[in-house]
């Protein structure tokens, strides 16, 4: 986000210095079309399945599945920890994998968290951001959802860090595909109420999701550290100042 904000800051009007207006979404009509398409498939397929999964599989079962999938992702997280030079976090990822695969019974449980080694996310999109690559124009794809060029590239490159890619290189892709589907269903099941609430409390669901995606990516890239210096200047922000009219600029 630093780069995006800094970029906006240089170009912005002085009163609203780092305004993020101008959403960098040149393909918005196409994106909105895919967004609606995804909502359609969500309504007829994913959401019912996720609701069913949420209702039928008891909580410990769902948590076991989540832990197992997270553990399976460790190699990708580790590779990206290392590429970002985050040695401590790399150590955490490696230890978590060791502990959860053995003590945690092939990753079904997460004893490492209880021992102070919390899970964190990493992917190659974040690595590119740490290396200074901007997000690029917003892109929303069927099935994948928000995937601006940087994060789409990250998604593809991450497949190369995933041992499953090589194990199933010239075999039927049943296992990787199953993982993708179960992961999607589980994530959807975990956001049933949240997404409903966001949809019903947005004046424009598409625009809200776009902003939420960008803000949460920025937060992930910064490893959860908020950069308070990058916040917009709000000192003279009122309706009642006598500033010259800057609207429509």
């Amino acid at each position: 986000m630093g780069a995006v904000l800094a970029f906006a800051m240089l170009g912005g009007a002085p009163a609203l210095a780092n305004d993020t207006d101008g959403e960098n979404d040149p393909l918005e009509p196409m994106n909105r079309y895919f967004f609606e398409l995804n909502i359609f498939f969500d309504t007829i397929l994913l959401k019912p399945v996720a609701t069913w999964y949420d209702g039928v599989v008891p909580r410990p079962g769902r948590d076991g599945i989540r832990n197992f999938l997270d553990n399976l992702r460790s190699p990708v997280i580790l590779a990206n920890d290392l590429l970002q030079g985050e040695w401590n976090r790399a150590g955490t990822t490696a230890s978590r994998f060791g502990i959860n695969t053995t003590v945690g019974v092939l990753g079904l449980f997460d004893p490492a968290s209880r021992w102070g080694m919390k899970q964190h996310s990493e992917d190659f999109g974040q690595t590119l951001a740490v290396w200074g690559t901007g997000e690029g124009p917003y892109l929303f794809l069927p099935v994948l959802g928000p995937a601006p060029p940087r994060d789409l590239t990250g998604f593809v490159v991450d497949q190369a860090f995933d041992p499953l890619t090589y194990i199933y290189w010239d075999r039927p892709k049943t296992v990787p595909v199953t993982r993708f589907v179960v992961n999607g269903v589980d994530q959807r099941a975990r956001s049933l109420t949240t997404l409903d609430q966001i949809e019903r409390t947005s004046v424009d669901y598409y625009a809200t999701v776009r902003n939420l995606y960008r803000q949460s990516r920025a937060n992930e890239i910064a490893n959860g550290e908020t950069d308070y210096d990058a916040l917009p200047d709000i000192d003279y922000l009122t309706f009642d100042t006598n500033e010259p009219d800057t609207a429509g600029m």
Partner: protein
Amino acid sequence: MSPHASMKTALASIALCATLALFQGPAAAQAAGDPKAFVDGVAEQAIAIISDEAASTKQREEAFRELLRENADLDRVAAFALGQYLRTPDDAQRAEYRELVETFIVKVYVTRLSDYNDEKLEITGSQKRGENQAIVKSEIRFTSGREPVTVDWWLIEKDGAYKIFDVNVVGIWLAQEQRSTFTTVIRNNGGRFDALLEHLRAQIGKAEKGDLSGIAQGG
């Protein structure tokens, strides 16, 4: 990244502080009290309102509106959420916008906060931001053992007291989210301000028909 931009901001804020100091003198400095105590008080009241099962949704919303009026700088939030379109509305539109935004915010947050009833908010730190602002960091810790949720409060002094400007929940600034959405609505309607008012009215109307309260109970 861009060292040039951060230099520019740094210089700008130094200049700003110097100007403020010149005009306000030393008296204005510490009038607003302890930001942590302020947030603690507001959060406690908010959780009490949301957790009050005896109250109807309408009563809850009214209590929440009072709380916001007293403790948030709603005018500044409303202005911020318009971004580049701050000067677009005429006086009548502006008056209606301010009213709609207040109602909208009340409805949105009574809904979104419904997950957090009966929980405790722990203040974990605070820092000054310039002359008249502060950031208070906190965590909502769940009795169910769910991962704690981090919440940052961005405060700004107004009339000698702190007011909430924005709240960050797990990395998301809520006023920034609103601004992004509001400006998109105006832009996609060719800069027509009434389009935003229509969207806000529609959303509030939906809420009043029970769409929002329905899911609040579901959560």
